């Protein structure tokens, strides 16, 4: 046997590692130390945590989910169900990490999980003794009643007993990122098929990305003793990778798992940038979620070996035969010095030969076939099966039932299982493709593929190295032709091409406690029970037994479950069906999906130009959508927010106040049809609005419900400035674009959002004109005659700075809104404060704004709540019947025009000290209090410093006709019952004299 391993100092095994072999791809000359469950061990660069533990004689790595059975690694890859550990400590602790994929680094710390007090002595292993009661479906049968016990008793107990690792409970200190990449060809998997596909396309000049989940490209070539051309296969892989790395049009992405195949050639790729390091380098993310858009993709994801079910097949030391080969050939480690192999095909013999060549003793190869090949190097038990195993914390004995019916006991520390290979078809199924059954392989192979994807190599059922190489080249040549880069086939590297026929052998006859899904503890018996109880459809089987529902998604277990259900129902395996594979291919931390979108970056924070000024003034801010708005400006000595708000309201109503209203949506509407356009968008008319005038506008949805309100100012014949509420700015703009492009494409009208372009300030109060005169340039006449209520104009301020002035009032006072280019916003606010000092100018926030609009009876978001019509708002007469407007036809329909419809009214408490709360409901004074007798509800309430008692706005049935009626306001949630009187919603200056002054 030619082993091809290099003989140099770096390949001499460390005597302190009891099961470390010579050779392999680990650097024996460098020692890394790490700890597992507090004990220190030695390993080497190139190891995984699992290979290093095995090399140190550690087979026991975890406890199972339900029965707390001792478990060791089943595999050497990302399909691992058992060897899940908590990696790292402190805030970086990560549960359920697969020891088989963790790259060893110096100082690594890991702990076992789901075991107490220790991995070797786990108290909850009592579950294993109780297993007759904990079969499939036991949750549903046992914890049925009383219902209240579920949340309080059963669930917490079960969660503590079951479950795997635990979170640190601390904020994740690492950064995660997202990125976009584009390529002609994405090659998924860097085994022989993927490497040759990437090389073929790369040489042809295509932009290629080669993504592989492993830290070293090469796939199975790293784990086998194959020959390609005339040298070791791993040498061919290394040379190919080197050539790929030299091509500027090829990007190699190691440590990168393609987690999903999405629509239109978009692939999700998780790159583990820093997981092989103790912590990320400064400025580097831990992981990156790439969105790769590829014109073509080649799936070369390889195959996964499948286990054989037999009684007690889950003891540490029992693993896939191919994993034994990987640990020996690649990682120079063996779980034991004496091993056996249980196989139903020739592949198992390959494991025995490789381990024998590495000096590991082969107790026997147990082959189910009567005509199994013989070997001069080890004993082959033909027609034999494994009847059972022993060893509490690790395998010690295997009982073999031989062809003649006699039993024989082998003393071994490891047993390899070779049940054949399943192509990794997962990504072919992400867009509803279903795999198809292949009889020769007794396995599912890819069926209908996502557009643009081809499959090569073992993933496509080509299980020989030659098959992988030739399919890799063929698919790449076809992809290049599609991409307009025709290329010829280069001579294929020579490789083994043994014909592969797989004889299925799923389980030993009569086995019961034979594990199928080792992570979720599902046994052959559980599948039998599901069948007995009628859960026979594959999706029912899965949910009833939880087969394949663990973090490994049943990569090693689903097929055997299907096969057993097929036997029980006397169907073929494809007749039973297959479960759907969905993204992600392997588990992804939630943090990776979030990327940088966390904490303050979860949504953008928008600041107005005078934000820093407000901060200097000690403003308290409130989030309004993405905006931060000043809520109120506390002064020294004020201990309660209402003192500040009352002061701001009073100062505004009696003097002058300034409020930052930059956040209101502003939309510039221009074009010869601008007026006709607004006439359609608003329920009320705009065609005849004079230049230099502003009008309040109400927008309806097409179904007749109020959508938003604001003002439209006509700056010129063909130019309007529209404002929207802060919250609806984006939505209204989108709606107006819809109307413009889809409903009136023939109109000459253009829209642009100018919300960020202008800083805007409400200047309100009887002294507002005096204040404005000190900033507006002197040639502009602000007298009531020249610039009356609802006037607007382009003006200049502070010496020729262009500005817009609107005489509109939300507070009900004589008021203006002054807009200046955003970059002057901060200076404008400071100027207003400076020049208005002697007038007592007072900045006010959103609370005072809200109090004054309630006092004035103006509707806001609480009233425009998505259920109310213009009629409900008392604005029914605004809806013009003489023109077409969005929502006008449906606003007239019957259901929205009943005699007892809700109307906006005002409420005052009969006892001036009583509270009114928003959300309270109105009932007749003496009638019953229940939903049936509900008359209406309160939308807004505030303490009016102007009136000295609380006021409320409410919707009340027939409200307009019930002025002066006394009602009962109830809020069962806050135990409130108050007598209130119905009144006009216009509490302050109902005639509007002040705003016209």
């Amino acid at each position, binding site marked *: 046997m030619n082993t091809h391993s290099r003989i140099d100092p770096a390949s001499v095994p460390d005597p302190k590692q009891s099961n470390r072999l010579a050779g392999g791809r680990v650097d024996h000359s460098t020692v890394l130390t790490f700890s597992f469950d507090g004990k220190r061990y030695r390993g080497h660069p190139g190891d995984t945590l699992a290979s290093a533990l095995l090399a140190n004689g550690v087979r026991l790595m975890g406890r199972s989910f339900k029965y707390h059975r001792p478990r060791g690694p089943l595999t050497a890859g990302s399909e691992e169900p058992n060897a899940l550990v908590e990696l790292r400590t402190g805030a970086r602790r990560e549960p359920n990490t697969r020891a088989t994929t963790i790259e060893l680094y110096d100082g690594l710390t890991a702990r076992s999980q789901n075991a107490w007090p220790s991995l070797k002595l786990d108290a909850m292993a009592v579950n294993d003794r109780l297993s007759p009661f904990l079969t499939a479906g036991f949750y549903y049968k046992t914890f049925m009643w009383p219902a209240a016990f579920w949340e309080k008793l059963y669930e917490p107990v079960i969660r503590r007993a079951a479950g795997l690792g635990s979170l640190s409970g601390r904020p994740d200190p690492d950064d995660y990122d997202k990125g976009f990449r584009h390529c002609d060809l994405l090659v998924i998997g860097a085994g022989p098929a993927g490497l040759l596909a990437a090389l073929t396309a790369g040489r042809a000049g295509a932009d290629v990305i080669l993504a592989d989940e492993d830290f070293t490209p090469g796939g199975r070539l790293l784990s086998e003793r194959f020959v390609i051309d005339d040298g070791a296969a791993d040498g061919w892989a290394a040379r190919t990778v080197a050539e790929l790395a030299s091509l500027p049009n090829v990007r190699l992405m190691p440590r990168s798992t393609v987690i999903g195949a999405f629509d239109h050639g*978009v692939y999700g790729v998780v790159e583990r940038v820093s997981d092989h390091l103790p912590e990320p380098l400064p400025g580097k993310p831990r992981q990156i979620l790439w969105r790769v858009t590829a014109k073509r993709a080649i799936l070369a994801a390889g195959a996964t070996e499948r286990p054989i079910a037999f009684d007690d097949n889950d003891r540490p030391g029992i693993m896939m035969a191919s994993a034994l080969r990987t640990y020996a050939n690649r990682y120079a480690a063996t779980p034991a010095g004496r091993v056996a192999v249980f196989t139903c095909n020739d592949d198992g013999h390959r494991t025995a030969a490789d381990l024998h060549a590495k000096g590991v003793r082969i107790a026997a190869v147990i082959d189910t076939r009567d005509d199994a090949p013989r070997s001069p190097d080890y004993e082959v038990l033909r027609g034999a099966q494994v009847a059972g195993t022993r060893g509490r914390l690790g395998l010690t004995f295997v009982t073999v039932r031989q062809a003649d019916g006699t039993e024989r006991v082998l003393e071994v520390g490891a047993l390899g299982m070779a049940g054949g290979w399943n192509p990794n078809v997962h990504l072919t199924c992400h867009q509803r493709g279903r795999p198809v059954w292949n009889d020769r392989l007794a396995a599912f192979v890819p069926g209908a593929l996502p557009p643009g994807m081809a499959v090569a190599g073992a993933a496509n059922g080509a299980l020989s190295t030659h098959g992988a190489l030739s399919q890799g080249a063929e698919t790449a040549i076809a992809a290049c032709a599609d991409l307009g880069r025709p290329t010829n086939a280069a001579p294929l590297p020579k490789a083994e091409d043994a014909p592969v026929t797989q004889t299925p052998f799923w389980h030993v006859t009569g086995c019961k406690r034979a594990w199928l899904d080792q992570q979720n503890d599902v046994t052959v018996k559980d599948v039998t029970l599901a069948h007995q109880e009628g859960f026979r459809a594959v999706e029912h089987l899965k949910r009833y037994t939880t087969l394949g529902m663990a973090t490994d998604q049943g990569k090693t277990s689903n097929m055997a479950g299907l096969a057993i259900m097929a036997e029980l129902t006397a169907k073929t395996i494809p007749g039973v069906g297959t479960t759907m594979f969905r993204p992600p291919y392997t588990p992804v931390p939630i943090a990776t999906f979030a990327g940088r979108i966390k904490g303050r970056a979860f949504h953008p924070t928008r600041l107005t130009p005078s934000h820093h000024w407000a901060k200097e003034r000690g403003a308290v801010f409130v989030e309004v959508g993405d905006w931060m708005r000043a809520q109120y400006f506390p002064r020294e000595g004020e201990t309660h927010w209402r003192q500040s708000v009352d002061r701001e309201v009073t100062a505004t109503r009696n003097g002058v106040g300034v409020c930052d209203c930059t956040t209101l949506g502003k939309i510039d509407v221009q074009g010869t049809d601008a007026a006709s356009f607004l006439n359609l968008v608003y329920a009320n008319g705009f065609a005849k609005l004079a230049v230099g005038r502003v009008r309040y506008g109400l927008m309806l949805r097409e179904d007749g419900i109020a959508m938003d309100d604001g003002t439209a100012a006509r700056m010129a014949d063909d130019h309007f400035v529209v404002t929207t509420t802060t919250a609806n700015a984006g939505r209204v703009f989108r709606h107006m674009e819809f109307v413009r*492009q889809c409903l009136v494409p*023939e109109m000459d009208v253009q829209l642009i959002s100018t919300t960020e372009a202008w800083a805007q300030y409400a200047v309100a109060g009887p002294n507002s004109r005096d204040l404005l005169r000190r900033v507006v340039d002197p040639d502009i006449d602000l007298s009531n005659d020249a610039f009356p209520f609802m006037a607007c104009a382009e003006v200049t301020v502070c010496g020729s700075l262009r500005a817009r002035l609107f005489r509109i009032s939300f507070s009900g006072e004589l008021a203006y809104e002054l807009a200046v280019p955003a970059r002057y916003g901060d200076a404008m606010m400071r100027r207003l404060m400076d020049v208005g000092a002697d007038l007592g100018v007072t900045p006010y926030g959103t609370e005072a704004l809200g109090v004054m609009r309630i006092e004035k009876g103006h509707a806001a978001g609480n009233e425009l709540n998505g259920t109310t019509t213009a009629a409900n708002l008392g604005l029914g007469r605004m809806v013009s019947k003489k023109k077409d407007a969005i929502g006008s036809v449906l606003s007239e329909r019957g259901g929205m025009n009943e005699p007892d419809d809700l109307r906006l009214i005002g409420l005052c408490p009969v006892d001036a000290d009583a509270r009114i709360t928003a959300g309270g409901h109105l009932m007749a004074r003496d009638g019953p209090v229940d939903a049936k007798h509900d008359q209406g509800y309160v939308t807004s309430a505030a303490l009016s410093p102007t009136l000295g008692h609380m006021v409320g706005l409410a919707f009340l049935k027939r409200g307009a006709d019930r002025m002066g009626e006394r009602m009962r306001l109830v809020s069962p949630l806050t135990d409130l019952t108050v007598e209130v009187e119905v009144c006009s919603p216009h509490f302050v200056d109902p005639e509007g004299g002040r705003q016209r002054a």
Partner: protein
Amino acid sequence: MLIDHPLLGPRDASEFVYLGDASLIDRPDWQADDAARAFHDYAYLRDNPAGPHRELWFHEGGDRSWLVVTRDTTTHEITDVRLARDVALERRRSS
């Protein structure tokens, strides 16, 4: 998903906002005798086909074009993308 914008080329679906059935372009005549019925159907009734579906997408994270996208709801295959404005103008001319 990628949407092949008629002016900008293929753009990621995350730049778009979805509205719904492209029949929303065909807003009824407010003065017709059956306007109430027609607006009711326009506002509330939609086909929900398993297969090709003409639908409105807004390029909010881009150039603010409304697009009519023909998408197969069972496969997400997009067979046609047009500016909604062009579609609307064409329908005016043909009606």
